[in-house]
């Protein structure tokens, strides 16, 4: 099978921040994305669980599959906010079919 290497970016962020982050992704050339629910966790700010009461502390996992170039642009733009906005950012490699779909 003809597969291509692409970057898989995952960003864990508070739900209210997601629209702003997908806007940053779009400005870095990544317009397609997928959102995965997250149910709880623990970090420097302590434990949390998704209580949905205000949604203020609910988190969502944003998944982006894209080219190395776009990935770098996105990470560059998001980096300054990682600490202040308590985001978790991970980048890894994946193989995809129809690579042009993920440029």
């Amino acid at each position, binding site marked *: 099978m003809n597969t291509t290497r692409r970057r898989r970016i995952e960003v864990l962020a508070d739900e209210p921040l997601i629209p702003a982050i997908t806007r940053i992704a779009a400005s870095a050339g990544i317009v397609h994305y997928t959102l995965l629910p997250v149910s709880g966790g623990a970090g420097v700010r302590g434990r949390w669980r998704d209580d949905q*009461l205000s949604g203020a502390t609910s988190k969502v996992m944003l998944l982006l599959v894209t080219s190395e170039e776009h990935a770098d642009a996105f990470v560059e733009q998001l980096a300054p906010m990682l600490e202040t906005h308590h985001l978790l950012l991970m980048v890894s490699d994946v193989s995809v079919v129809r690579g042009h779909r993920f440029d």
Partner: protein
Amino acid sequence: MAVDALLQPVVLFFLLGALAAFARSDLVIPEAVAKGISLYLMMSIGLRGGAEVAETGFTHDMALAGGAGLALSFLLPLPVFWLLRIAAKLDRTNAAAVAAHYGSVSVVTFATGSEILRQAGMPAAGYMVGVLALMETPAIITGLLLARTGGTANLGPRGGLLHETFLNGSVVLLLGSFLIGMIDGKEGLLSIAPVFDVPFRGMLCIFLLDMGLIAARRLLDRQALTVPTVVLALLIPLINGSLGVGLGTLLGLDAGSAAALGILAGSASYIAVPAVMRLALPEADPGLYLGMSLAVTFPFNLTIGIAYYGWLAAGMAA
């Protein structure tokens, strides 16, 4: 009134939830159900308030109460901010975020308080629901001005913060239901009363059970709460609530409505305001503002505050 109020099922279920969480039981209300009940409460409160206003029409008292509510929501964050800066040594951003919560209101505290006041024979007027809706957002504006931050432009909402504030889901639902109540009136709502009127207290019980679990778990996980912030989370509602009752009485509102204004002033938001703050002041610590409003002030109001504001209003009216 105080002891009776404490033994009502709504309060007992809150205590049950809190005890279960403190004992580290794994009891959990599914988030979707809790969220659904929270939306139900907004709809029900809005509809019933609107229907009452449809009956009485606009009155002088209504305008006074509305003006008082707006003023309280705009101004209460100022002394609160000052207290937090001085007594709890919070930084500007965190103090501003917390102050916004205390200027705004808690819908469930209001709902529980209304039920308890009604039970005690001094019901609040229907228009107080409108005042509730008016008081939700002004405090957010004051809070943002206090924070003096143009800061986090990068992740700000597209439509601007005011858009975000006024179109917060719970604000829209409460106001929309209030309008529907005004349009359809008691008559028009008769066919849906079996859902939005009759079961209200029972639904509140389930919701408060969940609130007990959430508040107590937050208290157990307390990372951000310090002795000064806990003390302030007990003191601020007392002060704000007393101011609310006093202002209501001064303006000539009936005792029930003055008590309700006290409940509104004394309560702190934990639904609409945190959602906006997370976006507007992301550097502020949610553990702090939710800890204070949800884990300390809410239980305090539910068990002591409401009874005290009612007692104060009854005394001042006499």
